[in-house]
């Protein structure tokens, strides 16, 4: 079974996002970029399925700017077999919307015919939490989002999901889309020899136009601003003082 893993190049999760002075977005020029952390978990899970003999090939796909090549090389260094880059924007500040990403991924999937797609549940830049679900809808496939455990059993995937109040286990018919939550696994670090090897693995490049998909946005970004700040209050010295302050504030 072929497993396809979409990965996104995003601002590194350790970097504080800063809003540009003109209010058009977050400044991404000369900022450290990395693979979206949830996508790293998805790549790790696909590689583990291959190591268990369940998956035969792991294909990483990225939709975005040319620089997303680096993100795909990371996936290859972790253990993906090959990669596909769909160039859909020139400016690093252009965020392709999940609906357009899902349409592009559908076009790639129509060619590649994977048996399973594992995606991150959410990108840490636009925080939409949508691409996997939208892709499942466009393909007419089942979806198992926010996965903390995946077991492939013949023609179905048994997936445990992180939901409000606990866990839910469902079975989805394959092919299906699974989106990865935090506790699915701990992604490995790529070793230096594997980073060197990844440079020789195949990385195909296409454009959105090649796939015949219109990526023009449905949501116009009117403005981006800093959230309202919250002021620091006071420090108390003792528990007694804290208790009396909380009583004064009427919250206990």
């Amino acid at each position, binding site marked *: 079974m072929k497993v396809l893993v979409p990965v996104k190049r995003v601002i590194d999760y350790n970097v504080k996002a800063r809003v540009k002075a003109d209010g058009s977005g977050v400044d991404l020029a000369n900022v450290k970029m990395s693979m979206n952390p949830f996508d790293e978990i998805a790549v790790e899970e696909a590689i583990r399925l291959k190591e268990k003999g369940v998956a035969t090939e792991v294909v990483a796909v990225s939709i975005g700017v040319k620089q997303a090549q680096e993100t795909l090389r990371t996936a290859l260094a972790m253990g993906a077999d090959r990669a596909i880059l769909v160039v859909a924007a020139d400016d690093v500040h252009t965020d392709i919307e999940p609906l357009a990403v899902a349409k592009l991924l559908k076009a790639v999937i129509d060619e590649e015919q994977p048996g399973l797609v594992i995606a991150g549940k959410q990108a840490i830049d636009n*925080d939409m939490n949508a691409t996997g679900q939208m892709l499942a809808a466009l393909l007419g496939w*089942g*979806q198992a989002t926010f996965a903390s455990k995946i077991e492939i059993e013949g023609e179905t995937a048994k997936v445990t999901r992180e939901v*409000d109040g606990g866990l839910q286990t469902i079975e989805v018919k394959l092919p299906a889309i699974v989106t990865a939550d935090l506790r699915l696994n701990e992604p490995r670090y790529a070793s230096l020899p594997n980073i060197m090897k990844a440079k020789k693995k195949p990385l195909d490049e296409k454009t959105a136009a090649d796939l015949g998909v219109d990526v023009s946005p449905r949501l116009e970004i009117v403005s981006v601003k800093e959230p309202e700040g919250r002021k620091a209050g006071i420090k108390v010295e003792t*528990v007694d003082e804290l208790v009396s302050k909380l009583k004064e504030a009427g919250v206990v």
Partner: protein
Amino acid sequence: MAVLLLGEVTNGELNRDATAKAVSALKSLGDVTVLCAGASAQAAGEAAATIDGVAKVLVAEDALYGHRLAEPAAALLVGLADGFDHIAAPATTDAKNIMPRVAALLDAMVISDVSAVVDADTFERPVYAGNAIQTVKSKDAKKVLTIRTASFDAAGDGAAAPVEATAKADDPALSAWVADEVVESDRPELTSAGRVVSGGRGVGSKDDFALIEKLADKLGAAVGASRAAVDSGYAPNDYQVGQTGKVVAPELYVAIGISGAIQHLAGMKDSKVIVAINKDEEAPIFQIADYGLVGDLFATVPELTEKL
């Protein structure tokens, strides 16, 4: 203008808080019709009918909707979408699962986690873990939204709106429910609790997390955790407060052994009163706390539990 709102129904029961907060976010856009779907949903529908601002309730009762699977729920919503300009749901894990699927089926771009409604086409939402607020204007004919409940006050009670049954949609038969593992708790639900006590990496172990729970029980509070505490295995994932977990806005939020990473602050900074207890006086959590106590949590938290 008319709004179709997916009510949050779990095992036949309406989550009134989440649903009423979504109603208050949306009622300026037009008549709100609430859809309650479930294996049993009539009682939930009757409860939803009494939320102020609800014009009508649709009840879809069928075993197909009993476990909130995304594919049948999305098919049901898409089948009912005619005549509605906005299709929305409170941003619970169920809705985050269902609504993007609905949007894609309608060829619309979902607008997730709406924190303010500017007008019928324009919405605010947090991005970059709450480090920026984006205002977006949708060009889609039908807008599909999820509502960040912590940003809105719950609508009150009103006169009962009419409740009608609606037919089920075809079963896409793509997935099946196997089991639920619900954490049984006498504590209030995290996202609607008036008080929340959360522990972070500073708590140090799963066993010591009991300190957090004892204080929470003394206060009648829900228990939360930072992502660091969840990743370290001290607390289950559904305790997680933050951009990748739950967003809360209680009257009182007590952060214990939590440094205050941006991702955590995004999930709790709208709380009314924030208390921070941390041994590191430079911890960023103190920059947003109303009352900060620098000290060893293993001494101060039991003392606080005793003195409250």
